């Protein structure tokens, strides 16, 4: 007696569409939730730590005078309307012409942040292990320089992009009031 032909052979798979209604419910709830909490502008902060005031709140004077005989770099960038001056405690780095800024404005009259970064990178290479304050830079500006320029200068002096890597320059920025 022959076997009965297998039923499995000729069974047609009737495809039932998956029930996606619960997934849809989930989406309808999740999307408004995430959309309401999404932040489209990302904020950041620049840290700027001053030493606490020399006069304590209760009137005591802290005796924290700087050590005099330590050789310090005191690198300073001065932002003027003609460009950047880079100077240290020893000398002012002069530009191509004497008396002109170290990094003058570009031809179109904007500040040359790229040159500033690469110049600071040079200085960083040389000063790295020679000075105790090779992380520190002082920023000074003319009274009329706007906030965006100051922030962009901080960016330029914080790090530089070399071969797709960020190399730190002088992340520790202080602002100086300068001579008004």
């Amino acid at each position, binding site marked *: 007696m022959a076997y009965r032909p297998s039923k499995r052979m000729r069974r047609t798979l009737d495809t039932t569409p998956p029930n996606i209604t619960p997934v849809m419910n989930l989406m309808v709830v999740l*999307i408004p939730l995430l959309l309401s909490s999404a932040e489209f502008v990302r904020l950041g*902060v620049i840290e700027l730590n001053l030493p606490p005031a020399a006069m304590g709140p209760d009137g005591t004077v802290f005796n924290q005078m700087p050590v005099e005989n330590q050789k310090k770099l005191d690198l300073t960038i001065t932002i003027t309307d003609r460009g950047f001056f880079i100077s240290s405690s020893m000398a002012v780095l002069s530009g191509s012409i004497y008396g002109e800024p170290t990094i003058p404005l570009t031809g179109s009259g904007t500040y040359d942040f790229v040159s500033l970064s690469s110049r600071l990178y040079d200085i960083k290479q040389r000063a790295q292990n020679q000075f105790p304050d090779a992380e520190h830079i002082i920023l000074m500006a003319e009274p009329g320089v*706007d906030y*965006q320029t100051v922030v962009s200068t901080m960016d330029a002096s914080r790090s530089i992009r070399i071969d797709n890597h960020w190399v730190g320059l002088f992340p520790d920025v202080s602002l100086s009031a300068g001579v008004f």
Partner: protein
Amino acid sequence: MAFIPSRRKRHQTGSGEVRLQLTSMMDMFTILLVFLLKTYSTHGQLINPSQDLTLPSSNVQNPPEVGLDITVSSDMVLEDGRSVIGWILVNGKPVEKTANLDEMRGYIIPNLQSVLQQYAEEGRRLEERFGTKFSGKVTIQGDKQLPYRLLIKILATCGQSNFPNMRLVVYQTEG
């Protein structure tokens, strides 16, 4: 001659039930969901950006922190011709007109200093009673047009009023 429809075969026509095609909608929702999950940040909005000023942009990567909020807007004329007077706000409360700063001599802004010292005292009292550390943190939101001479006065006043840890709030750009 037309065939007579077979009576033995079942025909699909006329069943009456029409199913809604949801597959393409699902695709769309899935993409949206992935995008929103990627932009989702767990720490939420710690700093409310002010309406009437444009923050400067920077490539800094530090996330915002909580602190006393100082907002400095400068005088400007809006696109529809209305002019806005710049104010210095501490936690949303106006303290001093920005225009008055230019006439002041020295670096300390008296009104701002007195308000900041109140906040500092409050912070120290809380530290004494409940042990919450007073960090002296202050976040400064300044308009990007703000000139340096005003910025430095505000920073100097914060430093002299027991808030030495300043955070300049900026828009992050992809660096």
